[in-house]
């Protein structure tokens, strides 16, 4: 193939790379634009009106000034399109329901406004339950709510995070006591919580909660203590970049290895610290993120301690890894490709039995947070449909009556450790 028509002789262009490149540019510029074969305006507007009539009413969508003579034929055509689309959607829904017990993409979109409202209601109920069970010192009775007292720090921190998640800025009445209660247990080296087998889980979760409280101005005078907690995370990092159940110095003695789940909390904390302007002076955050990327296989699935290492649900570790990259790694160079791969990996894992129907607060929490942390547009219609089913299931399992109205019954594998406080905090935070 040769470039036949250029402003320069072909031989000259062939010897002169710059001239040849200019000729390529010129040829590209001369490509005729590909034009639509029909006007898309009526179709687009019809789809918008058809897909979200509730949104249109709620936000007061209005048409521009146009004579009725101009609009009449257009409206007739739009009506025909709407009816046609509506019929197609109905058939699609029927077909889908016959094979899978899931609503269609269009139906999912149409119910979005109602679901947003229901999610807000569910979160308010959860917040009311959390507030009603917080004592005057800002703590929750972990054991009394079915959890283990030795995990009080992490469980109180999760409850505090859930409480903050839906509070307007400046509301410190419940946040400040909760944060100060966490800080009351801080050790001289900055550690939060007990030095038990779950030490870094406890510390990471508590540090995230404190950073969130600091971020919203609830404990400004305790910034130095929160900085100490962040420094402890940095000191506990393994040379490889991840974090294990115990700090690195102790892990070296016990042989404990870093894992994706524990590391996700430390990375989130370092990401918030960076957002607060504390930077990443010695590259701990970067090393942590890089370590997470090393856990992903070619399909974007994240292993627990190594690629293809799946002692339990790979969906949770993939979601945790993706959340780390999409939130704490936002704005850092070199993560785009692997973030995209992990997002694809997560989407692939979502389409498996049980994801939409089986209660798993930890998995739901990380999956929905990871998706929410991705820049728009986040995922395909099919993935959104599955996520909508997950959200619906979370809402539908919230207790609606009695003393624990607004909470979630502890039902998953970690129920014996975390009890009702754990299931409620994570479920409430999972809701969009």
């Amino acid at each position: 193939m040769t470039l036949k028509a250029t402003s320069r002789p072909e031989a000259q262009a062939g010897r002169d790379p710059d001239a040849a490149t200019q000729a390529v540019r010129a040829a590209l510029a001369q490509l005729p634009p590909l034009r639509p074969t029909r006007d898309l305006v009526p179709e687009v507007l019809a789809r918008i009106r058809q897909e979200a009539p509730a949104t249109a009413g709620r936000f007061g969508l209005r048409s521009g000034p146009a004579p009725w003579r101009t609009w009449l034929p257009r409206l007739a055509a739009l009506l025909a399109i709407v009816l046609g689309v509506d019929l197609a959607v109905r058939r699609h829904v029927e077909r889908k329901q016959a094979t899978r017990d899931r609503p269609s993409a269009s139906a999912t979109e149409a119910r979005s406004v109602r679901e947003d409202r229901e999610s807000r209601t569910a979160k308010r109920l959860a917040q009311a339950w959390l507030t009603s069970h917080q004592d005057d010192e800002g703590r929750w009775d972990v054991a009394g709510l079915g959890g283990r007292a030795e995990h009080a720090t992490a469980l109180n921190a999760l409850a505090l995070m859930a409480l903050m998640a839906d509070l307007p800025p400046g509301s410190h009445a419940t946040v400040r006591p909760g944060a100060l209660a966490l800080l009351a247990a801080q050790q001289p080296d900055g550690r939060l919580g007990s030095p038990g087998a779950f030490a870094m889980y406890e510390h990471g979760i508590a540090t995230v909660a404190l950073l969130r409280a600091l971020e919203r101005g609830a404990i400004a005078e305790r910034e130095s203590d929160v900085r100490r907690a962040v420094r402890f995370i940095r000191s506990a990092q393994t040379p490889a970049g991840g974090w294990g159940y115990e700090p690195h110095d102790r892990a070296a003695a016990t042989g404990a290895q870093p894992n994706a789940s524990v590391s996700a909390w430390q990375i989130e904390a370092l990401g918030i610290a960076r957002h607060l302007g504390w930077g990443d002076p010695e590259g701990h955050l970067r090393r942590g993120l890089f370590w997470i990327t090393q856990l992903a296989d070619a399909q974007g699935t994240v292993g627990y301690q190594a690629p293809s290492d799946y002692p339990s649900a790979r969906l949770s570790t993939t979601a945790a890894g993706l959340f780390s990259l999409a939130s704490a790694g936002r704005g850092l160079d070199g993560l785009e490709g692997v973030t995209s791969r992990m997002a694809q990996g997560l989407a692939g894992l979502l389409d498996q039995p049980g994801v939409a129907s089986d209660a798993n607060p930890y998995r739901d929490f990380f999956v929905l947070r990871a998706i929410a942390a991705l820049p728009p547009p986040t995922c395909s219609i099919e993935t959104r449909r599955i996520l909508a089913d997950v959200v619906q299931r979370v809402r539908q399992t919230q207790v609606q009556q009695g003393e624990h109205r607004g909470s979630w019954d502890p039902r998953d594998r970690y129920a014996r450790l975390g009890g009702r406080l754990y299931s409620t905090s994570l479920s409430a935070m999972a809701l969009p």
Partner: protein
Amino acid sequence: MSIAPPNPPHTAPPARDHELMQRTVDGDLEAFGGLVERHQGALVNYFGRCGVYTGEREDLAQETFVRIYRYRNRYRPTAQFTTFLYLVARQVRIDLLRRTERRRRLYDQFQQSAPQAAVPGAVERGERLDIEQALAALDETFREVVVLVLLQGLKHREAAEVLAIPIGTVKSRLNTALQRLRETVQGPKHDPESDE
């Protein structure tokens, strides 16, 4: 759809994209219609030059606009509307590729096997077909940079935002793409002197 009526002329004075988008956010659906009317041609060209099958370009453009409407509250006037537009369009195209990977491969094979025979007067328009084929044969990573910057007119900074890569990477990919296009339309690189 052949039942689409002729679009009535918009009588309102021309407004800038971000003004129309702001009116859309405020609830003026007709303003959004103005944005669709203004950018539908560019979007169809974008999808076409990125290798989307003829019958799907308009569907993808439509899907892009619908998504933009859904995400209207996330648009910030500090960014060019076209950046937002192509950011969404690119994701729409990626979603399509995932759904129709097998069909796309078949279409690509068809395109490569007999593209010119399907176009009357191909010989007379040899140059255009050559550069079109070269563009179509370009690796996706490089083709989208060429399409965004050279065909759709985005600035390097805007293309970098759309592709979520640094500006330097945009420039280097563009240079590489032009070099590969040049080699494709001129044949393998060689030293003319050595042939003597």
